[in-house]
């Protein structure tokens, strides 16, 4: 499959004297994490399939600085931000899409103050717009009629009030969308945000991802849909912890759409 992926870089576009329609910001998880790389590829397949002229920064991309900022290291965050902004401004980037809500939030909200002004979209918003423009078709395929619950990523939902784009896409799969007890603006965190992903949790009586997984299991889904590579990891671990990995899949929305079309 992988030989079919077309992943041009900004440098290649520049060399050809062209501008892509959109920059795909892959993010650190999407570049390096084995699970998240599958999401990245699924999204690229969808972009290729919809003939979207996109480019990636490739080796010129660097961490947005989100985990450093939330950990309290404003200095490191701004160093990262200013470096990335320099690269993107040199390429005259106007529009960015990313599959990571943390990158999304940082690029969209925290880069403008440092000189980086771009239109930033989460991949679910972007896919929704492709759908509206008729460039992407979504079929249910093997997900038709499946019970799917969506776990709201904090940095997409509460942080930026994006609740409907991912849900609209799931509905398009002809799936049965079921909501957990805490959803949308009251969605419970997966436990990874605020740099928690990179450290052990403080002493307590439970891990946050277990609590959230239990909420998900309560609605008896066949699939837990995620829109964030970190939530994906946390929920996957939660499902494994409950020994339900045989029955319940944790999938990114991009993967669901790509798989449904056998891409």
């Amino acid at each position, binding site marked *: 499959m992988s030989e079919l992926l077309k992943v041009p870089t900004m440098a290649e576009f520049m060399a050809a004297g062209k501008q892509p329609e959109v920059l795909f910001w892959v993010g650190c998880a999407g570049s390096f994490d084995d699970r998240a790389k599958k999401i990245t590829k699924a999204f690229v397949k969808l972009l290729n399939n919809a003939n979207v002229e996109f480019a990636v920064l490739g080796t010129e991309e660097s961490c947005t600085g989100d985990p450093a900022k939330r950990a309290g290291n404003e*200095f490191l965050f701004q160093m990262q931000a200013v470096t990335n902004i320099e690269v993107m401004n040199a390429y005259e980037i106007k529009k960015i899409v990313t599959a990571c809500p943390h990158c999304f939030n940082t690029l969209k909200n925290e880069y403008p103050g440092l000189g980086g002004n771009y239109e930033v979209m989460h991949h679910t918003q972007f896919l929704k717009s492709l759908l509206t423009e008729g460039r992407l078709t979504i079929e249910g395929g093997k997900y038709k009629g499946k019970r799917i619950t969506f776990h709201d990523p904090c940095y997409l939902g509460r942080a930026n009030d994006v609740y409907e784009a991912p849900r609209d896409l799931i509905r398009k799969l002809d799936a049965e969308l079921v909501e957990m007890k805490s959803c949308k603006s009251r969605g419970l965190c997966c436990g990874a945000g605020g*740099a928690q992903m990179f450290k052990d*949790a403080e002493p307590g009586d439970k891990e946050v991802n277990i609590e959230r997984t239990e909420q998900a299991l309560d609605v008896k889904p066949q699939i837990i849909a995620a829109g964030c590579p970190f939530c994906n990891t946390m929920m996957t671990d939660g499902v494994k912890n409950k020994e339900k990995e045989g029955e319940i899949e944790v999938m990114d929305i991009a993967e669901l759409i790509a798989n449904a079309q056998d891409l």
Partner: protein
Amino acid sequence: MGILPQIIFAIALCIGLGYFANNVRKIIRNIKLGRDVDMSDDKPQRWKNMARIALGQSKMVTRPIAGFLHIIVYVGFVIINIEVLEIIIDGLTGKHRIFSFAGQTYDILIGTFELLAFGVLVAVIIFWIRRNVIKLKRFMSSEMKGWPKSDGNIILYFEVVLMCLFLTMNGADLQLQLNGAAGYHTAGSFPISQWLLPIFDSLSNATLIIIERTAWWFHILGILAFLNYLYFSKHLHILLAFPNTFYGNLKPKGQFENLEAVTTEVMMMMDPDADPFAAAPEGAEDEVPAKFGASDVQDLSWVNLLNAYTCTECGRCTSECPANQTGKKLSPRKIMMDTRDRLEEVGKNIDVNKGVFNDDGKQLLGDYITNEELWACTSCNACVEACPVSIDPLNIIMQMRQYLVMEQSAAPMELNNMMTNIENNGAPWPYNQMDRLNWKDE
């Protein structure tokens, strides 16, 4: 009796309002100890937020039972204040029911007050049961032990007593009106206190007058006492909810402020033309170097401090907090309570030392809020979303993390590793930046 009651009333009113005004001045002074931030943008949106969230109680109703009961108490509180106005004018002029010239309108008003007073009474009793019998989890957290628990109950007792006095006063008045007692002209309608008539109808007019007057005096003195209790309690939200929602955050919740002091330094480091040996600009040598982040209340912004005074310890933030739900020490409500307690301590220090703060060797970080609490936060904004009056505990947590990391290098080791990775290879994990596109061919 002559003019004596009027004089006593005027004195009581002056003492009550004067003492309250003095405490309000202290609150304003303490809030101004905070770092200055400009909140003068987008006034129309701010007014709208205040109208919707504070006046309209829009976020209270996300929890329907508490929200509904709270609205009764809130509407009761606001509307019954019209009655307080009449009581004050009566007290100062020596008249009885001065607004009764309004005739039927007055009857409707008094009738409404009575219904609301009864509603408040019922709501407050249910609130008491929720706190003391059902023992709702969010009122039982460790930070609610001792004074905060008593404080919550004292407020409820105050309200029960005030409403009972109001209804007793009206009931005795009605009986006196029916008896045709001198000075008690027919005025008002009494849908609730009329049920007290069976108790009153056997009493003499003299006894009834004593009951009516006693209830009247204790009612207004009770209100003055309640007003002054506010400053010592967690109940200031009845006033501060309005400025607090006005000055609430208008940006997306995920957008954290970029520290300007850091930007200046970063820009200088990135500027190839910057002269590292350049003399500091005129006057800059005398400036105290900026402190990164917050370790005490004076480092926080005045909005954070206003937030702390506004918090009424309802605990919706804490009950939505993923860290707290899973047994971690972090409780966003405690962050707000600690901030207020420390601010009060600093304020008292300033009072004692004639207007200057004398270093007491304590600070918010460590003496009130521990590192463990700060590091348990996932920055998920659930607490911010849950607050019915736009308080932002996360903002305080982040400023304190900044202090820990940038001033003390006191991040947990794993986070230091993560940050070193970002510094060295542009990712939180130890992967080479040159391998960033390898996924394409895997």
